[in-house]
């Protein structure tokens, strides 16, 4: 079932109160890629305890560059964390959300990992955050995401970039250098 963004709150209230779809089981998004006309679709799955049936509601985000949707966490408290996760992974903002911040990644993380342009091997980001270093004075190098042993090179063909021991000096025939 499709829904217009502006009717989302109204529609989900109706589904909850009159159509008995009162259990929000899932809320997530799909990225259709950089060049798609409508890039992000938010997908809700509702379950009705009385009808014993699922209902899928799809909402297309109007703006591809800064997608915004109304938050339904006032209708379904369960949506609170799901919306935070969708924001964290796709960068879709939910207006009127009580506490919209990252949930799985850390607060200062600059990317949205589940967008299609984000590479599988990740992008190196300094850690810890600047404000932490300021207080602790600790000089910590970011953990390497590429180049170390058993770490993906992140480039080239799939067979070359898959995680494996990259240290050529340490093989079956020559021992590990001390």
């Amino acid at each position, binding site marked *: 079932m499709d829904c217009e963004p502006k009717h989302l709150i109204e529609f989900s209230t109706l589904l909850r109160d009159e159509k008995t779809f009162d259990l929000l089981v*899932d809320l997530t998004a799909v990225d259709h890629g950089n060049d798609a006309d409508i890039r992000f679709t938010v997908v809700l799955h509702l379950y009705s305890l009385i009808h014993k049936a699922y209902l*899928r509601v799809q909402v297309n985000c109007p703006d591809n560059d800064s997608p915004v949707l109304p938050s339904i966490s006032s209708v379904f408290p369960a949506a609170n964390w799901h919306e935070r996760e969708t924001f964290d992974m796709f960068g879709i903002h939910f207006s009127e959300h009580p506490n919209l911040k990252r949930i799985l990644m850390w607060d200062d993380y600059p990317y949205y990992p589940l967008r299609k342009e984000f590479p*599988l091997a990740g992008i190196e980001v300094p850690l810890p955050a600047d404000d932490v270093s300021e207080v602790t004075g600790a000089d910590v190098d970011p953990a390497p995401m590429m180049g170390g042993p058993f770490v993906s090179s992140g480039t080239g063909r799939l067979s070359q970039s898959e995680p494996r021991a990259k240290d050529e000096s340490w093989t079956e025939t020559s021992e590990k250098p001390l």
Partner: protein
Amino acid sequence: MSKTVTEVQIGDIGSQAASHMDSERMSLNVGPSHPTTHGVLRLMMELDGDLITRCEPVLGYLHRGDEKIAENMTYNQFVPYTDRLDYLAPLANNVAYAITVEKLAGVTLPERCEAIRVLICEMARISSHLLGMGVFGMDAGAWTPFMYTFTEREKLYTLFEELTGARFTTSFTRIGGVARDIPDGWLTKVEKFVDELPKAIDEVEKLLTRNRIFLDRTEGIGTISAEDAIAYGITGPNLRASGVDLDLRKDKPYSGYEKYEFDVPIGTKGDCYDRYLIRIEEVRQSILIIKQVIATMPGGLWYADDAKKIFAPPKDKIMSSMEELIQNFMIVTEGPQVPPGQIYFEAENPKGALGFYLVSKGGGVPYRLKIRAPSFCNLSILEKLVPGHMLSDITVILGSLDFVMGECDR
């Protein structure tokens, strides 16, 4: 009458202390690495004396990006990653994932395969609940039940090892079947195990169910009302403890669950004690299901023979026949071929409803795979549930919710 000097002083100190208690709140950080949190959950709390006034869970310490990884590999390659979601019941995760893809691909499985899957799902449920109960007892201060439940889990792991080759990360299902048929004599061993299990459960019950200290610590603590449980999307034993009759094995039967008779225990109060009772009873019901499956185990194949583009044929056929060799080669290199479309499937896992939302654009790689983790949803109520409880109740509440961070953070 004039007040003595000492009286005035005492009064002053008292009122100072009272205003002190009103205004000064202590913030306390629990975790991310703390035995109470059963993994890497972090709680930022605000305390008024011993009373918790605010609680904010912080997640993500075990985030591995499973959903991103899934978009970059074939369907079968993702099976080992499902082991690492709820790592206390990997077999149930394998089954839930395989059924999702099969539903989209339109594969129908032979009866034997479905029966094997029901069997391993229920064994995984027992394994997970045994740990949940044991650790919950430990959280409430009772060490001994944990030893009983872990002894039984050890036997289960031995059975898993014989079936799948691995004790912990089983990766047993393939899209369109399971990895191998049941070994000879294995069912007899399972039957022996489930015959002996009730004795161990009774021992645990003797130690906990009417234990005064355990009752004092769990009764009336962490009460979730049915309305709240539904509003926050709680599923599984935690939802049923609140008195909501939702068991997907009964309501949306999959993998042939409709053939077996079992009861769904429902709680009345929704407190920590109810959640413990539900788990105990679910283990007993799982034993009943396992016995029925063993008694009616159908013969035949353990994979969908007609799904030529989904399931790689057994090794002996690959080695002797050209057609099967090509079929195997295509499935290994290209992945099982799934038509374009989208599907959402939920299975009743030990922790709750584990859902997979799969979007396919054709080919052997998912376009988008969302994992709906029951632990993630079950934890979202903490912000509302915890305030108003004492600090010492935290261990019991977290223990009774029985979550796994591997699944929560994905």
